[in-house]
């Protein structure tokens, strides 16, 4: 799955949880979930569960702790998909 498709999918997933619409519209690899999108830690968990469902993968604790920005999310999704 290419970068652009993944970013679009992540954008849809984080949409209900973000407080900052402008940052969401400008979402890129460099977008940080907490600092840019102002997502709280409880909603980060929901985002990870939504990512699991959307891509049919299981995110482990180590990956969860790293998944704080779009770049890390893409890397984790791609590596899990490759490992299947």
């Amino acid at each position, binding site marked *: 799955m290419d970068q652009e498709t993944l970013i679009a999918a992540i954008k849809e997933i984080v949409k209900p949880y973000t407080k900052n619409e402008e940052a969401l519209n400008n979402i890129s690899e460099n977008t940080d979930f907490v600092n840019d999108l102002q997502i709280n*830690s*409880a909603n*980060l*968990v*929901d985002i990870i*569960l939504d990512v699991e469902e959307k891509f049919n993968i299981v995110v482990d*604790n180590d990956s*969860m702790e790293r998944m704080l920005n779009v770049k890390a999310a893409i890397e984790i999704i791609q590596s899990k998909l490759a490992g299947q």
Partner: protein
Amino acid sequence: MTKEEVLECLPYGPSFLFVDALDHIDNEGATGHYTFHPEMECYKGHFIKYPVTPGVLLTEVMAQIGLVCLGIYITADMETCKGRSFALTSSEVHFRLPVFPGEKVTVISEKVYFRFGKLKCKVKLNNSEGKEVCSGIISGMIITRPTNA
């Protein structure tokens, strides 16, 4: 942990403890009850000459039994439970009936999930006639406060 041990671990003082006892608890859910004391200070103002239990306190009973008791049971034992709690992160509760001073309410909570430190529960609060007063979804994140604080 037993039902009684869970209560011993709760982080609340008498002025804000909204659990009298647990009726049942396991890894999937909790049931417990609380009776609102008719002399509670809030009834003097909510409302003037017409005391009704505030919805925020019904939500608090749901959260203390349905989220915090269940969360402590799932994540702690008697060694580790001191200071363990769950910080409320979201609640969406719909109210149907009023609760008057002195009424006993029963909370029934079912775990939706517990992952990455977040506990999400489907919670219902019934009155003593067994009628549903309110219900909704309550979530919290695991926290540990300093025990020497």
